């Protein structure tokens, strides 16, 4: 029963961001994302400063540019959505220009720019976070931040069993194909539906067995991860405070 490890995003490096406390990293990134989300974008300087903060973090993360670009492709649906906005989002009806008799609205253009900049910066931060933090560290960080133990347990189980589930899905697909099944056309959906149902029931039954194994080892409702050692994380905290200050300044100026 070999596993796929298909969802692992962290990349081993000796970056500063890899070594710091995950709870501080999580909270700092959360605040930087929040300050970017609240940028008005009317002031170029504050926008550029926030972009510089994000790009500096990208540099510090030692993430290869190619890998970054590949992962940034998750941004594409948002970009496509944003590109439509100048044509459909009328706002107060002010027309910027016309292209082949199609009006381009000023509000739409503003919204497009806002989405493109903010989403790209926020997705970049998410990419940096996942590349420099292992799944276990994220769970550990959430536990340290006193997130509900139930939620932490759910995340922890999801991470632990996603590989097991993906392997099961793969085995079922192989067994279907080995008996001549091919996923073509509407009619082939029926066996797929049955297979999904079987996987769901198997998942439920596994859940019961896991729970049995937990209570047989005295489980009383909380999962605790062992203490881990990390380097001082003051710098990233300062960066996030600076980011908040920039957005606050931006808010006052506009």
């Amino acid at each position, binding site marked *: 029963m070999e596993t796929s490890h298909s969802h692992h995003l962290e990349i081993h490096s000796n970056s500063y961001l890899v070594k710091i406390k995950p709870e501080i990293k999580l909270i700092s990134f959360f605040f930087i994302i929040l300050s970017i989300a609240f940028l008005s974008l009317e002031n170029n300087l504050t926008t550029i400063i926030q972009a510089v903060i994000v790009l500096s973090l990208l540099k510090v993360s030692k993430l290869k540019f190619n890998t970054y670009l590949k992962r940034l492709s998750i941004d594409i649906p948002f970009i496509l959505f944003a590109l439509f906005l100048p044509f459909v989002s009328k706002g107060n009806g002010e027309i910027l220009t016309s292209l082949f008799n199609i009006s381009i609205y000023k509000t739409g253009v503003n919204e497009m720019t806002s989405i493109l900049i903010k989403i790209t910066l926020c997705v970049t931060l998410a990419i940096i976070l996942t590349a420099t933090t292992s799944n276990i560290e994220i*769970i550990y960080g959430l536990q340290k931040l006193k997130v509900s133990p139930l939620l932490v347990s759910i995340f922890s189980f999801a991470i632990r069993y996603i590989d*097991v589930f993906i392997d099961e899905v793969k085995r079922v697909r192989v067994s279907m194909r080995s008996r001549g099944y091919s996923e073509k056309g509407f009619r082939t959906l029926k066996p797929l539906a049955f297979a999904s149902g079987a996987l769901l029931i198997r998942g439920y039954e596994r859940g019961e067995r896991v729970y049995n194994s937990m209570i047989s*080892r005295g489980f009383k409702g909380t999962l605790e*991860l*062992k203490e881990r050692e990390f380097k001082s994380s003051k710098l990233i905290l300062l960066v996030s405070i600076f980011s908040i200050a920039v957005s606050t300044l931006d808010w006052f100026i506009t």
Partner: protein
Amino acid sequence: MSDNYLNINNLSFEYPDGHEALKNINLNLSNGERLGVLGPNGAGKTTLILHLNGILGELKGNIQLNQVSYTEDNISKIRKSVGLVFQDPDDQLFMPTVLEDVMFGPKNFGFSEEQVEANSMKALEQVRMLEFIDKPPHHLSFGQKRKIAIASVLASEPELLVLDEPSSNLDPASRRELIDILKNLKVSIILVTHDLPMALEICNRSIILNNGQITADADTYKILKDSKVMEENRLELPFGFALHHLEE
């Protein structure tokens, strides 16, 4: 060696769908004894061992472990004393790293922090898996996962180790390693298995469970030699395996 370490009296169990999995089971186990539980698929073997850990709820009948009855008040003590190793190690290993999984049991049972650490390291050493402490369990091979599952139970210092099909899906070398590990453990063992040579090697005594009832309770060698009992209970020795050269 106490003769009455584990006493099961008139134990019956019916699943909610009406299937009667256990019918009036009576069984005694001495302290330090190793008992094989043999029988065909669907005989009630797994149901029986889940009862030993008080997992299936209210009992119809009576079980006592070291003269402690299986009641709601005693269940935590019972679970600490009875270490249950499940058939599929993926059901048992759910923590992010091997060490955290092994520490899970003793932490829950209220061991001190130093003791949790010491017991976990000792258990991992017993199953020869010390070098894997920081690995995530799902990155290990099936045989390695099985050994970690055993360590995760040993860390709570159980008096009785119950294993459900421990040799299933193991390659011959991993199976041999597992047998050696089990033979060196100083605890009572209940071994549920279809691997009859393994039962013969580890357990002096075996029972056969068929259709929810104990149909044989004797020396493992005698059971395996009795072709009539074997056939009646859908059991068969592996091809080429001969008993005649083994001493009774």
